[in-house]
């Protein structure tokens, strides 16, 4: 457990060092010592509560890379991350990208699921409005992500767009390395059916997202 965290933190440093920007005004040895201290502090500061178990602190290589303060990704590294994420995307099993936009709206509104207060019943929300403007009528929207209002109208409900949106929701690192957005499909937050509903919310011509 502890070792895993330390390893991934070290990996972050290694990756950053390879990127050639780890410097700052502190020596690499000093930086590495603080990285080890951080791994120790993370390992001893938490306890499991409900479904929020300690393994949630184990970063995969991608998140270890994305967690480096003052991170700079080179073009090549970013493209590698994106290609790897894209290769891991699971496309809809029946080839159908579009679900019910009404269900998509419900998921977009909900910020529930996966905290230590929640049950493991899979009733997870998409958290979409927390970060994005989506339909015109919901004025309580966040701005961490771009506005998605009129998304389908602007980009068209083509297969290419459907694939792009699916990829974005499944693993946003496929299109933007170290995106702030959760990997909804990859990390099992939402299932295929739920992702279809959200794709429909954005692209279905009848969705309020695409209404005037």
């Amino acid at each position, binding site marked *: 457990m502890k070792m895993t965290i330390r390893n991934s933190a070290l990996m972050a440093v290694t990756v950053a060092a390879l990127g050639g920007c780890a410097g700052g005004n502190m020596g690499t040895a000093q930086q590495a010592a603080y990285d080890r201290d951080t791994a120790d502090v*993370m390992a001893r500061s938490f306890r499991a509560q409900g479904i929020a178990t300690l393994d949630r602190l184990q970063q995969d290589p991608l998140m270890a890379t994305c967690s480096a303060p003052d991170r700079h990704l080179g073009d090549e590294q970013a493209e590698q991350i994106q290609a790897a994420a894209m290769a891991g995307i699971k496309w809809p099993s029946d080839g159908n990208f579009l679900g019910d936009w009404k269900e998509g709206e419900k998921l977009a509104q909900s910020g529930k699921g996966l*905290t230590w207060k929640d049950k493991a019943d899979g009733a997870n929300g998409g958290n979409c409005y927390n970060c994005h403007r989506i339909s015109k009528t919901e*004025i309580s929207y966040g701005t961490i992500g771009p506005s998605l209002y009129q998304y389908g109208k602007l980009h068209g409900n083509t297969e290419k767009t459907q694939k792009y949106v699916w990829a974005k929701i499944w693993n946003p690192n496929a299109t933007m390395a170290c995106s702030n957005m959760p990997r909804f499909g990859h990390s099992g937050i939402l299932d295929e059916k739920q992702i279809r509903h959200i794709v429909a919310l954005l692209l279905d011509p009848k969705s309020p997202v695409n209404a005037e």
Partner: protein
Amino acid sequence: MKSRKYAVCLGVSALALMVPTLPALADATSDGIAHYRELLAEGNPAELWEMRGEELWREARGPKKATLEQCDLGQGAGVVKGAFVTLPRYFADTKRVQDLESRLLTCMETLQGIPAAEVAATPFGKGEQENIEALVAWISAESRGMQFNVPTSHPEEKRMYEVGKRAFHFRGGPHDFGCVTCHGDDGKRIRLQDLPNLTQPADAARGFGAWPAYRVSSGELWSMQRRLNDCFRQQRFPYPLYGSDVTIALSTYLGVTANGAGESIAPAIKR
């Protein structure tokens, strides 16, 4: 400073996620919210906790029937004014960097004989935790209007700052969230809540300097420990131990970043 973000697209760069917002609507909304906050600031129920906190400081309590009046918050025994804006800091007696809440645990245990571990394990808003919430309301109020001046001269303070900075950027859990997800850019909001960019001095002073705060949504006084606890909950992380080093390191990072960049308004009133 900021991460460079690449939108290398699948040959569909025309899909770049850019849709113009409607400024008129956004402005009416934020004006309305600003008016709401202005009206709320008229009477802050945090004062109810401040009153109780001042009494608690002077009340002989615990197995040792002692007051907290000899508690050293870093400015010398019993000095409360100005203490809040210089915490977290290193304390030679405990040989560790402590924030206000963990320092109060030390004082309650050594002066009053109230076991710190039991208090740390008590749920927020209950028993001795309720008392700590009152104490931090009063102690922070005694530094109202003062600039942050969190020290980094001791090697342990410097170390906690560096650990805090890394913990702030640490992304994990099922959603890949970290503090930085919501608090690493200027001018963002979640739903209608403005998000301070806590990596920048003025915003760090505004954000860090508002807690403890009366939390309208729960009608309770939240200490910084509780604020951080709820951030970790929303991040879908496991449960941070009360007064644990990750919480103190984060406060050190935020406090040092806020140094000289704004006045403490704690205890504030928050949605």
